[in-house]
């Protein structure tokens, strides 16, 4: 145990994902030794990110404004929605430059062990977006693992009766994988070879 605020810092850092007690301690002492200006800048962006960044009211991607850059871009195809689990998946797909439609970020995948059911995901919001008939194709780009596949199947069942084309990214993505880590070429190919899902 360290004194007062040093221990507080270690405890706070230890709450971050992927940071164990040892790493927390290492980062804390790095901060203690760092240039005060650097630390002030870090503190500033931490506060700013919470103040300024919100979630797009249309697609729930991270955004600086009311809507994200993709949703605000009039050149993006309004008839296409690509459904992903997390904002980081949007970044991965944008890198491929294969997709010209818009997104919908679910905020996770169905995962009973993790306590995530349909109500914990932005499924109702997705259904609402489809109501006016503008969207004609839904691309289900949840992760190619068990939870992602099940989420895609569940969405296909819920949305199938609405009569739009529902596709799933083509295989070639390693099963058990994570979209974020699929390389650009593979992910790009998965987009061009997407298949229709039977609900």
């Amino acid at each position: 145990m360290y004194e007062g605020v040093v221990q507080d810092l270690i405890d706070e850092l230890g709450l971050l994902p992927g940071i164990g007690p040892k790493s927390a301690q290492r980062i804390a002492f790095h901060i203690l030794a760092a240039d005060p200006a650097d630390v002030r800048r870090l503190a500033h962006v931490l506060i700013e990110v919470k103040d300024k960044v919100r979630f797009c009211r249309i697609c729930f991607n991270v955004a600086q404004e009311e809507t994200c850059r993709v949703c605000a871009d009039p050149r993006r195809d309004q008839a296409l929605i690509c459904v992903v689990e997390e904002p980081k998946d949007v970044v991965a797909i944008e890198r491929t430059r294969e997709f010209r439609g818009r997104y919908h970020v679910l905020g996770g995948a169905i995962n009973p062990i993790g306590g995530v059911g349909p109500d914990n995901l932005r499924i109702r919001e997705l259904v609402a977006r489809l109501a006016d008939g503008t969207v004609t194709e839904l691309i289900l780009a949840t992760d190619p693992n068990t939870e992602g596949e099940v989420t895609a199947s569940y969405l296909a069942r819920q949305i199938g009766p609405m009569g739009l084309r529902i596709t799933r990214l083509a295989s070639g993505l390693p099963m058990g994988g994570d979209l974020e880590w699929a390389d650009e070429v593979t992910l790009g190919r998965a987009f061009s070879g997407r298949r229709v899902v039977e609900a």
Partner: protein
Amino acid sequence: MHVTHLSLTDFRSYPALELVLEPGVTTFTGANGQGKTNLVEAVGYVSTLASHRVASDAPLVRAGAARAVVRSRIVRDDRAALIELEIVPGKANRARLNRSAVGRPRDILGILATVLFAPEDLALVKGDPGERRRFLDDLLVARAPRFAAVRADYERVLKQRSMLLKTAGAARRGGGAGDLRTLDVWDGHLVQHGVELLAARLDLVEALRPRVTAAYAAVAAEPGTPVAGTAVAGAADSGAGGPDSETADSAVPAPVAGAPSDPGRVAAAASPPGSAANGSANGSANGSTDGRPPGVGPSVAGMTYRCSFPLPVPPRPAGEAGGPVPDAVRPSAEALAEAMFAELARVRKQEIDRGVTLVGPHRDDLELRIGELPARGYASHGESWSYALALRLASFGLLTDDGREPVLLLDDVFAELDGSRRDRLAELVAPAEQVLVTAAVEADVPAALAGAHYRVAGGTVTRAG
């Protein structure tokens, strides 16, 4: 195939070991606790990414070390491959093939094929159904590595689905509704992966049955009976794909020739557990027994796959009247899926009440029999041993006929066997491309297994002959 080089760093009791191996038989002898099993365990790990002794990786890393490295150079069809594995407890292992990293360690499965015989094998016969399911699934992976993914997918779906049932069940008992909106979707995925696994297991059991019968007869035969040296891996000599009936013929007087094409056998396995299908009456419906060759004596080894739901009766193959017999007579994947869905629907309420998944290949068993009686609970110690050996010998034969002759690893098995079983086993494995044998007592190793000899003492391995 064979291993030409084994190199260990901080694996079990070995800080550093370099071992050059040759085709043929190599024997490791030494007192208890000197590190003999550790050697074959390392070779087995390179092949299966699992130890035959422990379920977790931690004991594989030398006490005090952070990681273990196992390197193995193998030769297969005159081509060499170098497999390197780094074992770090609590973290994902890392693997390299020919010095370049592979995406996942799982990708090296299937490069080195092994069949390991060990004292632990007795559990295949005497142990829980889980032991036999693992035996089947490990063999599936050895034959076709893609089943590692099928198995992993099935297990993941099973875990998630069972948690959903448990949570919903608890909510219902607490007076709530319990959210089961996603259950149908989980059912779909459970059936998809479950049927893939089940179909493969059913096919595997059919392929194994005549070999197991033949191998058991060969191992357990009365002294003086001619040993069918080719009973197990014979097809490798006569060119791959020799008909099973031929291999079986040489070992059993009234052969299993009829069995592989007997349309009744899957139907026999189809009867739900606890029904009249148990025991010898099961074949009566279509006039056949489940894989038991007609007219054979009481000590014939047989086996029946027991499925957690009633298997649909497969279509009767055409061309029965003496003509060529078509092989595949198991129910189609579609029929299996339909039957599994039906059973899931039937037990749904029970599943929710109990919070467990009651249908699927994780509930199945491979019933082993000697004569009319189940081996488990009935067979003597010696008979159980012979059956366990027969399962391993049959695996060896099957992989060999697949064109992937495995390296045989015999860990301490001779000490467990009487003289005649010892000699018979030795004769059956001696022709293999490579056999690694461990024994505490040198005299326990039959003369038929002469070859290179090493002494293992205190973590050093020295050539003794």
